[in-house]
């Protein structure tokens, strides 16, 4: 039944929003703290390269985005473009995969680069 899947998606969006709130806070605090000595690629890589903690943190961040953003877009598509149904679901799954793939590529890049 669609109300069950709608409810599940809503819960996933709420849960991912809670994760993102924490991730954004940690990310912003890190930025503000880290740029005090000037911003450089070497400094960022020095912090992230080989660091499993940061890799795990940003992996969670990316995956939460990949869950959260397409569910929000789903409502935008319905309300602004009257786009519903299977084609919308396929497009959103593809977009989720794109966010996850490009995001994880960046995470791996700063971890292993």
């Amino acid at each position, binding site marked *: 039944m669609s109300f*069950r899947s709608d409810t599940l998606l*809503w819960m996933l969006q709420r849960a991912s929003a809670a994760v993102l709130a924490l991730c954004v806070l940690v990310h912003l605090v890190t930025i503000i703290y880290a740029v005090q000595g000037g911003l450089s690629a070497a400094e960022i890589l020095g912090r992230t390269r080989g660091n499993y903690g940061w890799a795990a943190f940003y992996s969670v961040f990316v995956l939460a985005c990949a869950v959260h953003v397409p569910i929000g877009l789903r409502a935008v598509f319905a*309300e602004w473009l009257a786009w519903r149904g299977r084609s919308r679901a396929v497009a959103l799954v593809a977009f989720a995969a794109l966010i996850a793939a490009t995001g994880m590529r960046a995470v791996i890049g700063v971890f292993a680069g």
Partner: protein
Amino acid sequence: MPRYASQTVLDVVTHIQRALDPTLAYRYACRVGMCGSCAMTVNGVARWTCRTHVDKVAKDGALEIGPLKNLPVIRDLVADMSEFFDKWAQARGRFEGSATRSDDFAKVAPQSEQREQVDAAIECIGCGVCYASCDVVTWNPDYLGPAALNRAWTLVNDVRDTANLERLRAVAGDAGCHACHTHVSCSERCPKQIAPTAGIAGLKRAVAKAAMRGDL
């Protein structure tokens, strides 16, 4: 238009029909803010015309009066309320109890949390102001809307009601409580100072709890 102290927008409409254009169609009944039938769009905002003083809304002495938005227009200022009330039925806005006439009265403590939730939402008279003010209804015509969901919320908190699971199923999903963006227009415009947004948030929590229990 003759002006006088404490003139309401409904007075203006009535004057137009009686003195200027007898073909004008509009709807009203009680004239004192009890029946909810005279709601119209006044200078872009849904209001009860009987409780809206011209002085408060006529910028530069100009009034633009139209039918309620988000509803089909029957004629002139008369909106067709059918879908508005059909959605109350879709949201299972009807009390369903199990007691018979031989049972004693149910005893509900006035200070109980559920009864206080009901008190905050029960005074709705179905005027349609919230429905006409809701952006989500405009974008998604299937959306049940603030009034129907507010009604469902009062029943979800009614300890005597026996159809809550079916009701939660009826209000869940993209046409139900999960469509609300909490723009709060309904709560802002409600002439009874009800906050349907809060009730809709309560429905979201109740649906989520039912889903986590595996009941939904």
